[in-house]
């Protein structure tokens, strides 16, 4: 089988790509996509560790399932907020929504 | 059996011929894939003819009758015609995605066939999550619609895509909810094991409500009448594939026909016992015939519905799903879970070694069937009282408005 570190490597790469997207994109929806990438990297890690270290303990699979739930909730609410912000400010650029900054 | 080289023992035959083991395995795999994938392709050519013939008979016409005997070659002629039609890519289209969409549309349907059990021995891949596999592959359909609608750079295509997706997404909910019931009954998600579990009793007798919900939701998923809003010519020209022409359009068309047929096969496998029938274990190929007959039965129902039922409006479509099908499927799921628990607690469930026995399954089936009947009774009485209230309200309003001015009939929407 493919060794564990190969999976971890890909997951780390995906996580960093997602982090880069979150930090650098201007469009709020693109930021949200970056978050999805990061969540998926976590999922890969969870399942890989489950498979290689404790394939009979259900923790890895169960928590992956819960991360699906959280990703769904996050996408639903996050996109709803973006749509709402767009409606009031006609913009989805993250920097334009800085009124809470001060 | 030693001398016969068939698909069942192809690996051994190739090995005897002195071939490398890995290569022999790969060739067998590839051959299996091509066989399984070619089956729907061949069927769809025939299906279009069947569909046109049945529709014609319902409308008191003859249907295709010029090309070949009984017009059998009509579809071939149509395909040849499409092959020589100019393929127009509209200006402003996103070229790569525009070309990708029909490929996804067609391939995603072919992929479903990988998990369909044809006989006790022949199945593409007996996945442990077969049911979720075809749900997952089916959900790619929404992506194809979105991609086709967006890349065409056409308002109507985009609008049609949005409507279609709203429809597909909505009807996926009762579809999946209905599928939980057979999973619960069979205790497996593998398609082959599900067929085996039905050898004693078909699931349509144990869960008729789930079967009907599955059928209706599938009608909407494949966009068949009365849910064919996605090609409502009078409203949104032709839906998401309006800009497509030539064989790319043909791919969408063939994909739709194939999808309609595929859901009939799935219906036959999940609720009508698939290949199971008399003598099927002695002659496995009989299973193929049984499956074909059951599928044809479901398909004919679908065709007759198509030619006889009028199209619904989109607000009715959505209301029917969210306010009728989804609540019913949730109640049905709860009811089935409850009844199954009761059956098990009372010891009416068949013993594991008798699970495929008809008589041993009878008590359980009777309990579940009566429960389903009761549910249907409740639903019908609720619809009746609702309808009566609606009618009285309408009559009252009509009587009131007659004194003032002639009004529109009740319930006409203001469009969207």
């Amino acid at each position, binding site marked *: 089988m493919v060794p564990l570190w190969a999976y971890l490597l890909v997951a780390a790469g995906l996580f960093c790509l997602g982090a880069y997207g979150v930090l650098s994109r201007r469009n709020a929806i693109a930021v949200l996509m970056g978050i999805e990438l990061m969540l998926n990297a976590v999922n890969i890690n969870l399942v890989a560790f489950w498979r290689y270290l404790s394939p009979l303990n259900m923790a890895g699979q169960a928590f992956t399932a819960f991360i*699906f739930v959280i990703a*769904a909730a996050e*996408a*639903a609410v996050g996109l*709803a907020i973006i749509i709402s912000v767009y409606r009031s400010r006609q913009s989805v650029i993250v920097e334009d929504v800085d009124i809470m900054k001060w | 059996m030693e001398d016969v080289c068939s698909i069942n023992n192809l690996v051994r035959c190739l090995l005897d011929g002195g071939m490398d083991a890995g290569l022999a395995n790969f060739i067998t*795999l*590839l051959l299996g*894939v091509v066989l*399984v*994938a070619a089956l729907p*392709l061949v069927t769809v050519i025939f299906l279009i003819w069947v569909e046109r013939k049945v529709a014609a008979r319902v409308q008191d016409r003859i249907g295709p009758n010029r090309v070949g005997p009984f017009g059998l070659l009509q579809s071939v002629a149509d395909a040849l015609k499409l*092959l*020589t039609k*100019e*393929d*127009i*890519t*509209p*200006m*402003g289209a996103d070229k790569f995605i525009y070309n990708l969409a029909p*490929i996804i*549309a*067609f*391939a995603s349907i*072919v*992929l479903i066939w*990988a998990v369909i059990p044809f006989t006790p021995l022949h199945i*593409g*891949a007996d*996945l*442990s999550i077969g049911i979720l596999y075809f749900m997952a592959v089916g959900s790619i359909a929404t992506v194809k619609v979105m991609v086709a609608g967006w890349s065409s*750079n*056409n*308002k*109507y295509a*985009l609008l049609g895509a949005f409507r279609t*997706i709203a429809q597909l*997404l*909505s009807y*996926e*909910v009762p579809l*999946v909810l209905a599928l*939980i019931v057979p*999973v*619960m009954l069979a*205790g497996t*998600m593998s398609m082959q094991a599900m067929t085996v579990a039905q050898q004693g009793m078909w699931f349509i007798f144990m869960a008729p409500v789930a079967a009907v919900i599955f059928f209706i939701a599938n009608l909407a998923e494949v966009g068949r009448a009365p849910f064919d809003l996605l090609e409502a010519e009078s409203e949104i020209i032709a839906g998401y594939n309006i*800009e497509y022409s030539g*064989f790319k359009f*043909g*791919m969408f068309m063939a994909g739709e026909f194939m999808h309609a047929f595929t859901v009939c096969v799935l219906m036959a496998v999940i609720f009508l016992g698939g290949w199971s029938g008399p003598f099927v274990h002695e002659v496995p190929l009989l299973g193929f015939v049984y499956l074909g007959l059951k599928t044809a039965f479901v398909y004919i129902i679908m065709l007759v519905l198509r030619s006889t039922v009028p199209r619904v409006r989109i607000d009715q479509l*959505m209301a029917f799903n*969210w*306010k009728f099908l989804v*609540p019913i499927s*949730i109640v049905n799921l709860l009811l089935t*879970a409850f009844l*199954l*628990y009761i059956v098990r607690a009372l010891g009416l469930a068949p013993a594991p070694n008798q699970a495929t026995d008809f008589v041993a399954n009878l008590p359980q089936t009777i309990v579940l069937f009566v429960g389903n009947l009761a549910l249907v009774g409740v639903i019908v009485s609720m619809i009746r009282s609702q309808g009566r209230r609606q009618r009285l309200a309408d009559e009252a309003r009509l009587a009131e408005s007659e004194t003032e001015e002639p009004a529109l009939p009740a319930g006409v929407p203001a469009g*969207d």
Partner: protein
Amino acid sequence: MAVLNEWAFIGVFFAVAWVFPVLPILGARILAPHKPNPLKQSTYECGVETVGDTWVQFKVQYYIYGLVFLVFDVEIVLLFPWALAYNQLDLFAFGAGFLFIFLLADALIYAWRKGALEWL
């Protein structure tokens, strides 16, 4: 591993399936005439000139349907393992599944009462 063999079939299927639609499309490219002109390639709107952007403003109702679907989809999918193991569960697990479905029904009732399911 026998289980992975089944998935190898699926993998090969994924690799092969797209060939079937691509072949006739390529064949059509060879056989079909190709004489594009601006009028032919213009956006088809029953002959009327296109006005404005393709990006018309869509109703938020589409998003609401997608949202409700997403929530239901995730919940139902989590129910599948429960249904699969149903024959081996005790009363407590049975009740846990019931509570889960009740919460699901709750969400539907809320959306219904709120009018989020109406096609306006």
